[in-house]
């Protein structure tokens, strides 16, 4: 395949991990929906699952409200953030009653010492599992042992492990083996040859493409995925097909 200085994806792309809005210490380069769509167009990205930056470190409840103005019925789809409190559960349940919850993202309550353990998160995880709502879990905020032990207690819950970095390199395979209904989002998978090796070990059905824009540049990982040994049918699964299946509540493998 000849390499060029311009790049366009050759399969449909549904980005599983896009952040919108400002962090309190870092304004976003995209100030509004139009600018985000323009950036997606520049990289050939058709659709994106988006969450609001305010949900990361300030308030998942308020941040979910700020997300509304970014949504677009055809290209930008909401990912609501959630934390194990009654208020948060009530907010997500209300949205669910409106038919608007197809995934949620875990807010980092570990930052204040609340572990990801059944006694702390069990009510939330039980409700998600019963309602077949997949949970995105950012690995930079997580503890490997808590993930393995807690998620093993909710075997029907589908999860997407987000942002595995080379500093998580020793976690990834044991977690993927222990948690058959876990997917791995690929925005930060940088160890040498690891995309091909993971697909070989677990099958392309276990992976989803995310850019983690605007934390990371949008195009670099998409370029990488298009220059591997994985087949185009596998690439289609990773870049859109698996995510669509997960959001439809059909992500279980076991």
């Amino acid at each position, binding site marked *: 395949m000849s*390499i060029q200085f311009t790049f366009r994806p050759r399969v449909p792309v549904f980005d599983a991990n896009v952040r919108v809005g400002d962090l309190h210490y870092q304004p976003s380069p995209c100030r509004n929906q139009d600018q985000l769509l323009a950036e997606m167009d520049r990289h050939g990205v058709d659709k994106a699952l988006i969450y609001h930056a305010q949900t990361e470190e300030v308030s998942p409840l308020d941040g979910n409200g700020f997300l509304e103005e970014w949504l677009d019925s055809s290209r930008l789809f909401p990912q609501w953030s959630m934390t194990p409190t009654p208020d948060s559960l009530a907010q997500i349940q209300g949205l669910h009653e409106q038919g608007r919850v197809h995934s949620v993202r875990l807010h980092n309550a570990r930052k204040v010492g609340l572990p990801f353990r059944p006694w702390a998160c069990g009510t939330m995880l039980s409700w998600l599992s019963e309602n077949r709502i997949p949970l995105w879990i950012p690995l930079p905020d997580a503890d490997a042992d808590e993930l393995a032990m807690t998620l093993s207690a909710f075997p029907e819950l589908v999860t997407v492990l987000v942002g595995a970095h080379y500093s998580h390199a020793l976690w990834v395979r044991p977690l993927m083996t222990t948690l058959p209904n876990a997917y791995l989002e690929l925005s930060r998978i940088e160890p040498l040859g690891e995309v091909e090796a993971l697909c070989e070990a677990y099958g392309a059905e276990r992976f989803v493409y995310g850019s983690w824009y605007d934390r990371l540049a949008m195009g670099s990982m998409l370029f990488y995925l298009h220059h591997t040994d994985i087949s185009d049918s596998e690439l289609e699964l990773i870049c859109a097909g698996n995510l669509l299946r997960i959001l439809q509540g059909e992500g279980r493998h076991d």
Partner: protein
Amino acid sequence: MIEEQRVIDFHGHTGRLDLYNGVDDPDLILHAMDKVGIDVSCVFNIFHPDGTTGNDITARFVAEHPDRFVGFAYVSPMMAEGMVDELTRAIDELGLVAIKLYPPYTQWDLNEPIWHPIYEFANERGLAIIFHTGSDPHSHPGLLADCAAKFPNANFVSGHAGNVAEPRAAAIRAAQDYPNIFLETCSTFRTPGVIEQLVNEAGADRVLFGSDIALMDSRPQLGKIITADISDEAKRLVCGGNAARLLGI
């Protein structure tokens, strides 16, 4: 090659970092390079303060594929008495072509006198020196300005271009002030707009593509150059034109 442009990766490692699954398997490295048209990768070994052990490893690694890799020499002021002798051996006998330095492994800022024998050596021979640069005090790229002024015939490369916003801004200012300062692009942060910032503010002729292979796969790091909002001409310089000029290869 990308559109007839030879592509040179200016930042790569030999040796294993098992905690991070960093494996210097030449077959895996060449596979990643071949998939995206990288012709040559520059490699060095920073894990041995004597310099000798790592430089020998690098030389053996390069010798297996001399058309695809070039080696850089590493020394450390933690064993300062042997630095210049080891550099002489590494360049003259092992055939390594530039120098890598890693100030976070030491207790000295990169512009302190203990480093100067290395800079004098590079200055005499017109060599390039790539530093790890970032937010830690020893590696702050703003300090490169002092070195560049004192040793104008050496070329100073800010590895990672400072990595994050404040040191990156300092690296750019240093490159604007001194023609012998260059900015190298590899970073796990992959922050949006950084490649555009480096090219627009320091100039496309001062930016070098690097990947940090084998700690990181070279493909996403090249991808951030290819997908940056800069001209094709700028991409040619960043991807290989500047490195070829700097290394004389």
